[in-house]
């Protein structure tokens, strides 16, 4: 097992270090990429939905204004998609984009700036009765302008470090303005994009088929003749599909056990790509419940968790691995390990942490054997193993914790009502960007999705500061401060372990790079099959 772990680290290192498709290999044309999708989209409208079940089958039909560089393993570098180039004003409040020419919708019509404007207006300023999932994350935008057919201009209310990245959101499909003008809901049930693949069919619960767009603006692409997404809910059936070579790749993640089985069965026919995953389970305390209003108690809770040992054990059985702060490790704003080790709960010496935790509890007047209920969401992976681990960790500092599992769909309703002492919470990013990752921890009155029922103006202020800091180093500093305050000093919420994404795919699949987000890199324009 130890030997194996070493091997995994090696695979991981390779995966993170080098793109899997070396430049010298010449892409081959043709073939149909088949991939299982573990979830299915409710509607087709990316602006409205939030499941990867939409991105995986639908992203290949569309382009976005910017996109995340598909060859960047950190998934953080915005590059142009429909935008050919862009400039930002000195004050950082105006962004001007030049669009590519000759981009056509699948119906043959030309894509122009009015389509981009209409799409972003729908996302940022939806008319009454139109749902937009991410309206809140574009609060900075004052107006979107289309001064000429190939220019789009965004005017911002304040400076935003993350603005370009946020335009690379995989959700922000560019729709056709004429269609939106007639029916804002049209895209919920129809597909009409500019992407590398055109829509063929969708059979509910069964599959989704796309075929090559011969008139794609990026000449020479896509390489595939088409793709077929199979909606397969059971992971065993997904694994069987890969195992039986009925499918090439599943873009979300498998477990380490699945990876090992596939590798054992198919050997070289399987290539494994892994990455830290921009999803994390964290613990939220309810400040309205005693003694969790006392930060000494909250700190004790996080100090009790020996994350380094936990990582070793849990990574074998659950889809978690990396010990991380508020930002995914390996990405530009991630906390360097030596700094992370200074944060409470991340000390290398677990005994020291536990002693400190016990001291804090004693100081706060929490008796030995104090018992409380830990609310957990009724999902097996990775909620269950993590909770079991934490309860054991807490037992070691003299706390007696009972788990109370609530069915998944009812769970957050309960949290919102504050019906808990300490609870599991969850955050998953579609792009690695501190604005998205930290927003969760704003005061509860600013973000009701922060269930701590707490107010922390210092954190709110730090959030704004990092969001507006255009200098990378300055922004890093604020993020570190934010992290120190959130996880250590106040410990309103604290992290468990970073999820870990494992993609064992057919070795025939080339031109696809794993990133920390399973929402990214699904346009499939550069993906090809060796045979």
């Amino acid at each position, binding site marked *: 097992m130890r030997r194996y772990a070493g091997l995994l680290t090696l695979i991981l290192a390779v995966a993170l270090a080098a793109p899997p498709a070396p430049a010298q290999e010449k892409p081959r044309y043709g073939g149909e990429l088949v991939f299982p999708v573990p979830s299915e989209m409710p509607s087709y409208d990316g602006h409205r939905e939030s499941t990867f079940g939409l991105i995986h089958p639908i992203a290949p039909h569309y382009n976005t204004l910017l996109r995340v560089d598909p060859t960047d393993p950190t998934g953080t570098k915005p590059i142009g998609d429909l935008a050919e180039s862009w400039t930002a004003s000195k004050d950082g409040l105006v962004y001007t984009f030049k669009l590519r020419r000759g981009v056509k919708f699948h119906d043959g019509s030309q894509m122009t700036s009015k389509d981009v404007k209409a799409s972003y207006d729908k996302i940022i300023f939806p008319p009454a009765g139109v749902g937009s999932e991410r309206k809140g994350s574009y609060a900075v935008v004052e107006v979107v302008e289309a001064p000429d057919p190939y220019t789009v201009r965004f005017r911002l209310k304040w400076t935003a470090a993350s603005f370009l990245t946020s335009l690379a959101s995989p959700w922000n499909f560019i729709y056709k303005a004429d269609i939106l003008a007639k029916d804002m809901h049209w895209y919920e049930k129809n597909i009409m994009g500019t992407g590398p693949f055109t829509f063929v069919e969708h*059979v509910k619960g069964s599959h989704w088929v796309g075929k090559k767009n011969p008139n794609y603006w990026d000449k020479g692409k896509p390489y595939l003749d088409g793709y077929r997404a199979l909606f397969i*809910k059971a992971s065993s059936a997904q694994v069987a599909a890969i195992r039986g070579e009925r499918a090439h790749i599943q873009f979300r993640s498998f477990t380490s056990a699945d990876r090992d089985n596939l590798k054992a069965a198919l050997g070289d026919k399987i290539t494994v790509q892994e990455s830290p995953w921009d999803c994390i389970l964290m613990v939220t305390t309810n400040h309205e419940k005693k003694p969790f209003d006392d930060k000494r108690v909250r700190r004790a809770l996080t100090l009790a968790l020996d994350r380094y040992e936990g990582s070793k054990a849990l990574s074998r059985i659950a889809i978690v691995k990396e010990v991380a702060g508020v930002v995914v490790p390996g990405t530009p704003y991630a906390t360097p390990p030596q700094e992370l080790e200074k944060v409470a709960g991340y000390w290398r010496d677990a005994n020291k942490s536990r002693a400190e935790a016990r001291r804090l509890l004693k100081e706060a007047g929490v008796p030995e054997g104090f018992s409380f209920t830990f609310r957990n969401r009724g999902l097996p992976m990775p909620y269950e193993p993590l909770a079991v681990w934490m309860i054991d960790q807490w037992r070691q500092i003299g706390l007696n914790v009972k788990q109370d599992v609530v069915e998944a769909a009812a769970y957050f309703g309960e949290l919102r009502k504050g019906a808990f002492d300490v609870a599991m919470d969850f955050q998953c990013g579609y792009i690695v960007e501190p604005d998205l990752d930290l927003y969760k921890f704003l005061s509860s009155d600013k973000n009701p*999705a922060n269930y701590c029922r707490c107010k922390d103006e210092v954190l709110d202020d730090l959030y704004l500061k990092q969001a507006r800091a255009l200098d990378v180093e300055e922004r890093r500093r604020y993020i570190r401060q934010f992290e120190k305050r959130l996880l250590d000093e106040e410990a309103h919420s604290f992290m468990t372990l970073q999820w870990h994404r494992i993609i064992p795919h057919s070795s025939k699949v080339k031109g696809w790079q794993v990133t920390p987000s399973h929402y990214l890199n699904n346009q499939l324009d550069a993906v090809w099959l060796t045979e």
Partner: protein
Amino acid sequence: MTKFIVRRLLLMIPTLLGVAVLIFLLLRIVPGDVVEARYVGGQGQFVSVEQMAMERAKLGLDQPLWKQFVAWMGGLVRLDLGISMWTGAPITEEIKLRFALSLQLAVMATIVATVLAIPLGIVAALKQDTWIDYGVRVFSIAGLAMPSFWLGIVFILGLLIIFEWLPPMVYTPFWVDPWQNMLQLVWPALAVGYRYSAVATRMTRSAMLEVLREDYIRTARAKGLWTKLILARHALKNAILPVLTVIALEFAFLLGGLVVTEQVFNLNGLGLLFVEAIARRDYTLTQALVMLVATVFIVVNFTVDLLYAWLDPRIRFR
């Protein structure tokens, strides 16, 4: 007889109404709703309370319960199932394909079960307490002991390891490509049918044993009839009645969906849809599915009664 049929048909209305009220209320007692399920969790942090209220209003979830119920009933009366709260698509469209699959699987599994159960049951009864009987009993107990999804996994692994082959992953309707269709469905039908045959086999065996002990069988033998004729004409028609009930109820259960088996074979059937509809708090879809399954049960029951009457004159001429 006509009166009997009309009466039974009319009795369906209060039964279904009762089911409707029950499922309507049960769904709303469970915490959480479709808007919650959709926007909260993962990335719901950017969704405002106002937007959630708007979504609820759009789905009519802000209406008083009785109004929601009346609206639903009104639709049902017009045979309009409404739209799914989750996908926004008409429920008929959501159910259609899955129903076709579940129906076909149920029919096939029932055929498998019947084809296995009736001959095996008869043979076991005729050869009571011989090794043939024990063999049949072991076979059927094994069927009961093995969950069909487990048998399904064994099938899949077997096919994969021995033949390096997997059944098709995607459902092809029978009328489009019968061969592909069969290649996919024959395995789950065997796995499920085998399991369901167990009960029917035992029922056939015991019914047959019971009938063979009846006085009228002795009368038939005393008349000097051939053994085969006694079995076919005198015994089977009597023994088949309880078997029929078992098989019909199994058929109704099968049609209600086989959640785990569907997952194992990746079948796009009603079972998974059902589970997902409930998990997503898709009230309209769940309600429609419950009504569908309830109707199926009632209709199957009714059909069994009619078959009973057809096979058993004591009921027909009551």
